[in-house]
């Protein structure tokens, strides 16, 4: 009952990798692939074997079972292969599964397979899906390559070309186009696109995209009602929960955020990032049991994957501290230092240790740890969040090291001069050290320092003194390496230099680095996209 296919040569020329732990099934699937016309088929019985084969050389098509017995599941193999760069833009990854889960079909787009097949896999289904994917991948390969090279304007151009020809899947191109508009800071175009799609059909990704636009514009009420409606209609649309939880957090409604994330992990329990978000939110609400459970799940889910990170360890240490069990907290932090690589993780663990030692009443060890971390922060090389630095300053203050505390607080304010919430928190810390008056003045002068640098830079640039402006921005950047506005102004001046004096590769990289750092700190900022696009237009 083979489905007749006039042209099997497309399959014969491609290399296949079949990943399946159950031997009998492996034989059956291999036969199926052969009947579809595949000639070169490698097989792997587990994730480790699959990755080893992929490291030896690229495969065109990977057919992978989701459940692979003990060890990695198919999704983890996919993520690891992507992370290691073992999959090209034209590679096809099909997941085979007994059951559809929310993680698989509606997790983050960048982690999704190209398609999935429900068991039992039939020849007609396998062949039909593969044929379509080959065509689709071919038509999208150029756009995907441009996006991977971060040439977003070129990718947009290619999308427009595709839409004019319309050989493929128009809504899919529109989806990519809308993402590109958001990435390049063209919010109005993105909105127009969403509106025109939603005028015809309630397409979930367009609703989610529109909600993201509202979030970036600070229209939290509109984002909220849109997301709540989306979740009511499509309860498995995970991105909607994550965005909605952030909306609640930013208006201070932590209990609402916790409720949303609890529901999200019920629907889709396998994302370590989402478990972290729940842990953080529950900790904020002082629901220690919920937080502990979420952080533990996150640790277990991320173990032996590339998603392993510091957040669950730090969270668990906080939970133990809040329970007055500092010994347990120190154990978690020791475990963190042992299990995570890199100076950044050690620094984060050390900063947390300072808090724990202080909670134990061990001023000496607390002071030593805090000084060590404080020095690293002032030197600029660190990955600590503003609130982690605030915590450290608080520890210093409680230890009586007012100067160290004050320096850290000024550092945070300089780097976040527009953030009123952080300024209020800094003032609280100053007040704990009974230096409220002095603190107020220091906060004001730190903010002023940042503003002055920006204004002066802008003035010099406007006067055409680009060289001086650039020098000033570079100096300011060493003082405020985490200030997103300053970083973007720096990139702006560099781009102006390139425009005036011609392209220079080193300068372009300098601007790109600033934009990339700023984007990490403020992911939704539209100037990031605008500046990247201008840079790309020059190069």
């Amino acid at each position, binding site marked *: 009952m083979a489905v007749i296919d006039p042209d099997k040569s497309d399959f014969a020329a491609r290399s296949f990798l079949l990943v399946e732990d159950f031997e009998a*099934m492996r034989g059956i699937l291999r*036969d199926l692939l052969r009947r579809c016309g595949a000639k070169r088929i490698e097989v792997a019985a587990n994730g480790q074997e699959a990755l080893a084969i992929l490291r030896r050389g690229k495969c065109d098509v990977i057919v992978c079972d989701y459940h692979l017995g003990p060890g990695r599941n198919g999704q983890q193999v996919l993520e690891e292969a992507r992370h290691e760069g073992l999959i090209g833009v034209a590679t096809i990854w099909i997941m085979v599964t007994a059951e559809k889960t929310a993680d698989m079909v509606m997790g983050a787009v960048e982690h999704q397979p190209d398609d999935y097949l429900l068991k039992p896999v039939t020849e007609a289904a396998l062949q039909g899906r593969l044929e379509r994917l080959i065509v689709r991948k071919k038509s999208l390969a150029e756009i995907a390559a441009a996006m991977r090279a971060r040439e977003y304007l070129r990718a947009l151009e290619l999308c427009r070309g595709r839409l004019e020809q319309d050989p493929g899947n*128009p809504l899919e191109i529109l989806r990519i186009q809308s993402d590109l508009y958001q990435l390049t800071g063209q919010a109005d175009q993105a909105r127009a696109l969403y509106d025109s799609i939603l005028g015809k059909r309630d397409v979930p990704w367009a609703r989610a995209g529109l909600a993201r636009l509202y979030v970036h514009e600070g229209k939290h009420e509109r984002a909220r009602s849109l997301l709540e409606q989306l979740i009511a209609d*499509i309860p498995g649309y995970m991105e909607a929960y994550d965005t909605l939880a952030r909306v609640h957090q930013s208006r201070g409604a932590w209990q609402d955020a916790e409720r949303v994330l609890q529901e999200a992990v019920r629907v889709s329990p396998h994302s370590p990032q989402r478990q972290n978000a729940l842990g953080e939110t529950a900790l904020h609400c002082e629901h220690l049991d919920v937080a502990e459970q979420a952080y533990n*799940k996150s640790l277990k889910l991320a173990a032996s994957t590339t998603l392993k990170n510091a957040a669950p360890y730090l969270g668990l240490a906080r939970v133990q501290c809040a329970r007055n069990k500092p010994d347990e907290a120190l154990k978690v932090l020791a475990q963190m230092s042992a299990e995570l690589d890199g100076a950044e993780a050690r620094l984060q663990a050390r900063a947390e240790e300072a808090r724990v030692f202080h909670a134990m009443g061990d001023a000496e060890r607390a002071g030593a740890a805090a000084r060590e971390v404080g020095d690293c922060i002032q030197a600029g090389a660190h990955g600590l969040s503003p609130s982690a630095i605030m915590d450290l300053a608080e520890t210093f203050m409680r230890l009586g090291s007012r100067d160290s505390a004050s320096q850290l607080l000024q550092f945070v304010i300089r780097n976040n001069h527009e953030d009123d919430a952080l300024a209020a928190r800094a003032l609280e810390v100053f007040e704990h050290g009974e230096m409220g008056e002095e603190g107020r003045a220091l906060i004001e002068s730190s903010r002023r320092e940042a503003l002055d640098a920006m204004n002066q830079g802008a003035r010099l640039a406007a006067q055409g003194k680009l060289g001086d402006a650039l020098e000033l921005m570079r100096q300011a950047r060493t003082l405020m390496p985490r200030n997103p506005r300053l970083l973007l102004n720096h990139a702006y001046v560099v781009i102006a230099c390139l425009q005036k004096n011609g392209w220079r590769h080193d300068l372009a990289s300098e601007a790109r680095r600033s934009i990339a750092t700023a984007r990490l700190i403020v992911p939704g900022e539209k100037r990031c996209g605008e500046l990247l696009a201008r840079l790309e237009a020059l190069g």
Partner: protein
Amino acid sequence: MNDPARFPGASAHDPAQPLHMDMATYMMAAAHDMKNSVCVMTAFLEKALDEIPADGASRTMTHQALYEAQRVNSHLMQILALYKIDEGLYPFDPVEVDLAAFAHEVLGGARGLAESKGVALDVQPCGQERFWYFDRDLVLSIVAQSLHNAIKYTRDRVRLGLRVTDGQLEIRVEDNGHGFPEFMLERGYPAQQGIDARTGSTGLGLYFASRVARMHRNRGLAGQTRLENRGDLGGGRFVLSLP
């Protein structure tokens, strides 16, 4: 509401958690396990069919066995999906579906059975519209089962038709058999009926179809199912419409 491991098929059980297994949970876990076994059976039967010569005497029996295995599989899939839908755990996922590819796939799953029974299977493709938006797996399951039923009850022809009318996609499965019995055409079937003593039908397939249809909503409209007699081929017709 917040019990994380109600459905063991959906998540690996965390040994640190106490088991909260009730009857429904056991049944769903068993259904999930049975489904895995049936999948293996189906795969072996398909492989066997490929190796039995076309005039082999056991060929018809193997086809029958494969058909029954597929029926069990689709019932299990529908029970599991309904359970998850009721618990708010089903990843309902309407996406843009290529209608030609969809028809190809669904017919591919029914062709073997049709051939073995000497039933001619044809498709009336959709005119203008190339894509429609729906949950591919749920709708595939409905249409595949409806085709299987039509092949079982038809005289010698079954047709799959796709068309767009009044902003709705209509997927029609029709045959040239005797049509549906009167009681099945009553409004509200199968919800108002128990298990039918005459046919042994549980009505699960139709119940599943109407539940899934209603989950598909667009701009204030919801999907529907209906049964008709005296269709274009003279027999019964099942229609699934999706906004």
